[in-house]
């Protein structure tokens, strides 16, 4: 438990709060989308960090008893390998990578829809600033969108 072994989790938290801060502090709709994208990306890093198995290699099957397999298994402690290894090789967990691939696709779709709406807002209001949009609605004699 030290700062160094958890450095990626600190990065996750930093990205996460930075993203959220941008979303709520910025008045510009495009900047808000950037913040949102940052926030979503931080979960990617979070899941990938979870997937890392200490001493594990990339989750691509290595031919047993091959040169690579011997070299990889020589890197890890035998007791540890007995618990976690498959044919002597320790792999990282592939599942979170797949999950995050899906989440990235979802994130891209959201970003695209969000930017498209922002573009339409600009057409309708002539501005991307949330404050000016609220002012325009108020001036038109109608209440602003809460």
């Amino acid at each position, binding site marked *: 438990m030290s700062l160094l072994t958890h450095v990626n989790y600190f990065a996750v938290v930093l990205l996460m709060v930075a993203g959220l801060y941008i979303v709520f502090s910025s008045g510009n709709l495009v900047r808000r989308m950037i913040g949102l994208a940052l926030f979503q990306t931080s979960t990617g890093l979070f899941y990938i960090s979870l997937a890392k198995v200490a001493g594990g290699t990339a989750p691509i099957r290595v031919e047993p008893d091959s040169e690579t397999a011997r070299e990889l298994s020589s890197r890890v402690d035998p007791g540890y390998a007995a618990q976690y290894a498959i044919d002597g090789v320790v792999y990282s967990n592939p599942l979170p990578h797949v999950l995050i691939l899906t989440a990235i696709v979802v994130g891209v779709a959201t970003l695209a829809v969000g930017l*498209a709406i922002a573009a339409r807002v600009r057409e309708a*209001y002539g501005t991307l600033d949330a404050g000016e949009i609220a002012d325009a609605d108020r001036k038109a004699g109608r209440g602003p969108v809460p």
Partner: protein
Amino acid sequence: MISFETLYAAPPDLLRHAPVLLVAGPLIGACAAALAPSSRWAWMISVGATIFALWMALGVIGEVARKGVLDYYLGGFAPPAGIAFRIDGLGATMALLIAFMGAAVSLYSGHSLRAEVRHEKQTLFQSGFLLCQAGMLGLVSTGDAFNAFVFLEISSIGTYALVALGSRRDRRALPAAFTYLVMGTIGATFFVIGVGFLYAATGTLNMEDLALRLTPLSESRVVQAGFAFIFVGLGLKAAMFPLHGWLPGAYTFAPTAIAAFLSATATKAAIYLMARFAFTVFESDDAFVQGFLFWALAPLAAVAAIVCSLQAAFEKDVRRILAFSSVAQAGYILLGLAVGTVLGVSAGLLHLLAHALMKGALFMAVGAATLAVNARTLTDFAGAGRDAPWTMAAFTMAAASLMGMPLTLGFLSKWRLIEAALAQNQVWIVAVIAVSSLLALVYVSRMFEAVFLRAPAQGAPRVKEAPVGVLVPLLILAGLSIWLGIDASLPEALADAGARALFGVSP
């Protein structure tokens, strides 16, 4: 109990794959509608796909009544390697609700779109609508926590675009859709973070597996943090007070078909997922969950029921009144969950069904009355009772259910809720329901006063009666709000089956 078998007859092959066809039908329909040559075609595809989904939902509920739980392994890969659909009594009830509302709204949208959405966007509207429905149906069918996130986002992404389409009538739909998108995405991301914590602690994403492995881990900080993230995220999606900021804008400016569909299903699907996590994935008698239900969910739901009813009582825009009322009524449903007993959850689910029917009907009625003129405020609706008698008759029936008049479904569900609260000696819930119902009486009476008693201003555009194609789905929904209040065996059986499935109690 009503026998669901009688509701349904289908070829066995179709029946075997009903859980996945339920989702695939609208999803394929969404692609087909996007490619449709004209808006007319897109509408017919939409009606066909939603009716197919309704058929499959009836098939699923018949099978669930027979077997208890339906497990469907996608591609034949069993969990933990594969992704499984798992539909129990609750999932089947929700699927039936979403499929039914989808079919009703799809029928309604044939006419309403012409007034509310630009012509060249109408095919894409139907596509987005089917996408949204497919997402929600998937959400209530899946047995996998991450899969639930993906379905949640499929339905939400459709929803954001659909809300923005309201911009033909009022450009404020665009900022409202943007706010909804930002809040919804934050909610979904919180949910993913929470699921990540659970995955880190257990190494599984299958909800059943999670439930087993979480039992010895309920003291773990990681699990508790995951729980908190999941509930804040779902709270945003469900517009749980005080995270409901996006809802009034989105419901007010969206095309009325979408306001009706979302108020009946979207927040309800999030509440479903909340119940699923609180009672199936986590254990309801776990001290942490109990504490959450009693110290977080119950007070927030109570505040929502009172504060948002009060806000509704002071609003002038009819659709904003209905939107704030939706947040307040979601408070009742959450109060039912917060009681934390089979009786309470069953009452909450009954109110969920009741609210879906009445709020769907109310938004449709408001939409039907405003096809010809864009009436918004109470003043615009003055004299509507005389100008559009059928539409306003449906409006009256649904509004009676909203304020909980006896002989309506809304009355019955509130009554069950009070019974469940008294059984747990939680008298304060009864007080909250009483105060909130009084406020509902106030805002419903204000609408009635405008519609029936006030004379329209000289020279103001008059509300017109809606065409038959709009009146049929509207009157069906409104009529059900009354009819099911008189003979409640069907909704009660559904709500009971849902609550029992959550607690794992056999009927």
